[in-house]
């Protein structure tokens, strides 16, 4: 089971890295989104995979009665999902603004903040 998950995580990472290497920010954005999901799967597999029931304590008992799935990775993933979701929302708006204001989504052409044809700094005093 873990081996298959490892393979799946690997595929996710491959796709994410491929997209991140693109010149277009919208593809990079999609790459970031997939990267986040790859990491979530990684944490999930890292918490060990079991075919157990969810860790919910039944009525009347004070603790788990049977072996249950590890709840901690799920909590970590939930946090990571919330964070990557808000980042995705922010970066989506930012990319959109960049596309509107800079009239390009090609990173090669996004050089507004870089100096253009700057002369050599003064060499003497």
């Amino acid at each position, binding site marked *: 089971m873990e081996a298959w998950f490892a393979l799946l995580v690997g595929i996710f990472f491959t796709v994410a890295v491929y997209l991140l290497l693109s010149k277009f920010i919208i593809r990079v954005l999609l790459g970031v989104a997939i990267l986040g999901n790859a990491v979530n799967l990684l944490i999930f597999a890292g918490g060990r995979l079991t075919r157990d029931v969810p860790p919910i304590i039944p009525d009347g008992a004070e603790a788990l009665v049977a072996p249950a799935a590890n709840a901690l990775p799920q909590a970590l993933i939930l946090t990571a999902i*919330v964070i990557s979701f*808000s980042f995705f*929302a*922010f970066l989506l*708006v930012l990319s*959109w603004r960049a596309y509107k204001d800079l009239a390009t989504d090609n990173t090669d052409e996004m050089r507004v903040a870089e100096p253009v044809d700057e002369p050599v700094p003064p060499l003497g005093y």
Partner: protein
Amino acid sequence: MKSVIFRTVAPVLTSLMALFSIFVLLRGHNEPGGGFIGGLIAVSALAIYGMAYGVETVRRAIFFHPMAIAGAGLLAATLAGLISIFARVPFMTGLWIYPAILGLEVPLSTVLLFDAGVYLVVVGAIGSIALSLEERGGE
């Protein structure tokens, strides 16, 4: 998006979703649910209303600016943690009171206050982004 069918259904759908979001928030302590998912449902409700009647209507309907709502939620969540100073227990410890309202015992806790804070933060922050995207998207 301004078809008659959609505009007729939207208010009903919005109010139902808002109600459902509060239900999800309240059942979140012992069962699946909670502030985050409840807040997302509420934002979807606002977004649907915005699609049907325009963003300005939504902004007027929720009265407060979305970011102010998020701020109130953040403050509520922080205070929920700090209440434990007075109970002499560590930060963020869940404290419960059981007042009887109309003969019914209502369990209230700092956990609920925290979760309600999360709900408001999500409604405010994601709502702010969603509304501004809708505004710019145009008709």
